[in-house]
């Protein structure tokens, strides 16, 4: 069995601050069961710990993280960065905007990781802890060259859009659409 809580949408409580201290970001969602009534509180870790000490035996307290710290803080830093630079980035490959990401917590394609990289980067305090350390793909299926070309064009498209070279971007986009069609058909 897999609990629904494990697939929480980061945006559902993104950017929420602790309801107790009002300062720290809320990372724990506390449900109080009292007979048939259920109340919800969003708390930071230290307030949640304090709260746990005050609960009498009759009430039931369940806690689960209300969001992923990484994504939530990334969104917060993205907002501040947006204010500083005065524009919101958009992924030229799939059209995902920073706002979309903030609303539903979802990236639209692999290229989004390049486009929004600086926002995720800013979040990671310990940069070495943020490197992938697990399994890596070992096999290279047929058509690898074509796939790499698609990834290269996707990056080029992002850069062209960012520097507002729209005519060149349009032709790269047409070439991409053609290649993507071939690749998805295998």
């Amino acid at each position, binding site marked *: *069995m*897999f*609990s*629904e*809580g*494990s*697939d929480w949408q*980061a945006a559902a409580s993104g950017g929420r601050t602790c309801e107790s201290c009002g300062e720290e970001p809320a*990372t*724990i969602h*506390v449900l109080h069961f009292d007979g048939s009534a259920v109340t919800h509180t969003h708390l930071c*870790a230290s307030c*949640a*710990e304090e*709260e*746990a000490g005050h*609960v009498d*035996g009759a*009430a*039931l*307290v*369940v*806690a*689960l*993280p209300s969001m*992923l*710290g*990484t*994504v939530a803080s*990334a969104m917060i830093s993205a907002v501040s960065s947006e204010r500083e630079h005065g524009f919101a980035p958009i992924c030229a490959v*799939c*059209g*995902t905007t920073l706002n979309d990401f903030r609303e*539903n*917590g*979802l*990236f*639209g*394609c*692999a290229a989004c*990781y390049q486009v929004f990289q600086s926002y995720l980067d800013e979040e990671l305090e310990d940069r*070495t*802890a*943020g*490197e*992938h*350390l*697990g*399994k890596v*793909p*070992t*096999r*290279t*299926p047929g058509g*690898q060259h074509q*796939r790499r070309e698609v990834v290269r064009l996707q990056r080029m498209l992002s850069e062209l859009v960012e520097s507002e070279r729209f005519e060149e971007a349009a032709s790269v986009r047409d070439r991409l659409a053609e290649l*993507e069609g071939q690749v*998805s*058909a*295998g």
Partner: protein
Amino acid sequence: MMADSVRLASGLTISRNEEVLPFPHAASEDMLCTFRARVESALSRHGAPGEWEFFDMDAISSAQRAYLVERGVMTPGFAKGVGRSRAFGLFQGGRAALEINGTDHLRMLGSGPPDGLSDVWATLDHIDDTLESEIAYAFDERWGYLTARAADSGTGLRAFLTLHAPGLMITGRLAAVAASLAGEGLALAPLWSGAGGVFQVFNRKALGTSEGRITEAVTAATRDIVEQERTVRKGLLRENPVSVRDHIGRALGVAQQAWSVSVAEALTLVSSIQVGVSMDLVEGPGIDAGATLSLMRRVQSAHVVVDGMGSGLGGLEDPRVDEVRAQLLRRIFAGARVAQ
């Protein structure tokens, strides 16, 4: 003995995406259908005949979906989604499963006994290798396997251990447990909205760590919670022997005599009775402290409907589901009694 009555099950999910296609929520249905066909044909070609069975999600009824969720071979989020490109694959009759075009293009998943994480991993790892030989995965050296939710990127792995911890729940200690898990990059979430005191411990982070370390961290944290639950149960019985026996005896009385029982109430009853069994307070033929999970599954609505086909139930919304569930409880606990 007691340890096994607290740890109920283990489970893993692995998320992957094709390198070029936009992720499902941003891709066209036609592209996703083409991709789905590629996946199905790749797995059918590589596996033994009949090893994989694929189903169109639109053709699976809501009762069947709920049944698969209750069996631990489908995630609740995938069961709720819509779209003609979505498909579900069952490997070796349920040893593992594959969700196609959910939040990510691919999500492999499997469940096992409490100490079965490494077996489940071995099965999923093998399926992953097979898929990878045909599908170019979206992968980045820095971010690992790329997923629609940035939080899943890295290994793309979530490891779950399911615990029966009603003692920690009724004594209000779960918030402290969750807070301490959060400090280790882990999380606690209630299964079945907390009914029956069943919870899952799982990893919040999939980046900056390896698959082995994730499963080890979840296993180690769980060991500690099991110990706490065991201590709480003993303490409750030592300090309140009459009220503990009374609570368990009443649960058994309702299970043996009630005529209509909701799923939440049934889970609570089974939970109390099984705690009694694990502490030798309940005895009788067919009573088994290790049966908690299977009993909790059998009282879930989709299991009541699917297992009780002969009862003529119309579906999950049939009002007689609660009656059939009560019959089931009466049958299961017919011979049980509170130990003197």
